[in-house]
């Protein structure tokens, strides 16, 4: 069942993005940035984790989950160390994604040239 909802929810978040591109004429950068910020806000309101429980990868794969993960990391650390934890904990949860993107991005630049 979670496979079905992963497909549907993931797809719907992308449709929201597509509407932002085509109807509101945002650039892809503006669109993804907006979605990340929305994810952070929903994370702060504790609305995003329930979506993850419901739709699994349908909520963790879109870029909105990056915003949520950043907030969760900051809040978790704040609970342990107080307000300064907001600064020190932000990248806790997301370090896998950022590290992977840098490492594999660089690797591909070593291996490949543009195809045009």
């Amino acid at each position: 069942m979670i496979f079905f909802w992963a497909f549907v929810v993931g797809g719907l978040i992308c449709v929201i993005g597509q509407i932002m591109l085509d109807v509101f004429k945002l650039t892809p950068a503006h669109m993804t940035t907006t979605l990340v910020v929305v994810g952070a806000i929903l994370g702060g309101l504790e609305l995003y984790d329930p979506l993850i429980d419901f739709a699994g990868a349908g909520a963790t794969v879109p870029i909105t989950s990056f915003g949520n993960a950043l907030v969760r990391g900051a809040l978790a650390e704040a609970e342990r160390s107080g307000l300064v934890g907001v600064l020190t904990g932000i990248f806790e949860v997301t370090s896998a994604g950022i590290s992977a993107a840098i490492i594999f991005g660089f690797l591909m630049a070593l291996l490949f040239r543009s195809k045009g």
Partner: protein
Amino acid sequence: MRQGRTWLFPTRPHIAASAAVGGPMEAQGPLARDFDVLHEDFWLGQDSFEKAEQKLLEEACEKAIEKAGMKKEDIDVFLAGDLLNQIITSNFTARALAVPYLGLFSACATSMEGLALAALLVDAGKAKRVLTGVASHNAASERQYRYPTEYGAQKPPTAQWTVTGAGAAVVVEGHAPGTGVHITAATVGRVVDMGIQDPFNMGAAMAPAAVETIETHFRDLRLAGDHYDLILTGDLARVGHRICVDLLAERGLAIPRDRMADCGLMIYREDQPVFAGGSGAASSGTVFYGHILREMVRGNLRRVLMVATGALLSPVSYQQKESIPCIAHAVAVERVDPA
């Protein structure tokens, strides 16, 4: 000599020879047979797209000089421009040619800026043989103006495809031997900005500039609507061409619709993935210096007005929320049969 804003060239400078070079997409287009050199390799065997663009311009220039029966040293002045920052393609080609050089920039209208100035120099007696050329490379333009080439952004249907190619011509005095295609007049454009801000919709941004220049040209020379066999715009493509033709009709210019065409629409087939059509300095450069001049020599066209169109924006101006100022330069050519 001038009529209104339009330059006339009483000594009738003409084109001794011209050449067009293209890339893989252009090789699959309908004008392939009118290119002097076509490349399968998008990189032209170079290790950057910028160096590939330079190679395109070098080849076009060498070919044009060769076809004119001249050597590099015979060229008095080299007039060239391209789309890259600081027009490096032209600068480095000028380095290879080692002749006096004037770099030009009107974005995609540079081809006719070059041809107009070449005719002016020869007509004024300041030079006997002037080489003029332009080049563009799809990937080099995309990198600079838009996005990395492998980036998965979705382009709208109004976007255009920068032509990978180069065009060059040698302009000489009226009495010298050549193709028989004379340069009769040139109208320098004014910058026109109708507030279009979308760099993925340059056709709509540039059309008003083309209309302004065409109107001025016809008014200055008091021409009938059917004076030219063909009025060609550089890279308005599907969107801009339609707007241009409709606008001219609205302004009462009485130019038969079937005598208006656009290089960006001619260079690619309908089924090639080029969105609204071709763009780039080489759009007018390859089609005019290749196909059109050959058609004139073949006897299929006698009087042509080439109106190259350019969008004078930069990535910075776009990010600073400026609109897109555009310009169009027109050069009139006529085939004169030997007496």
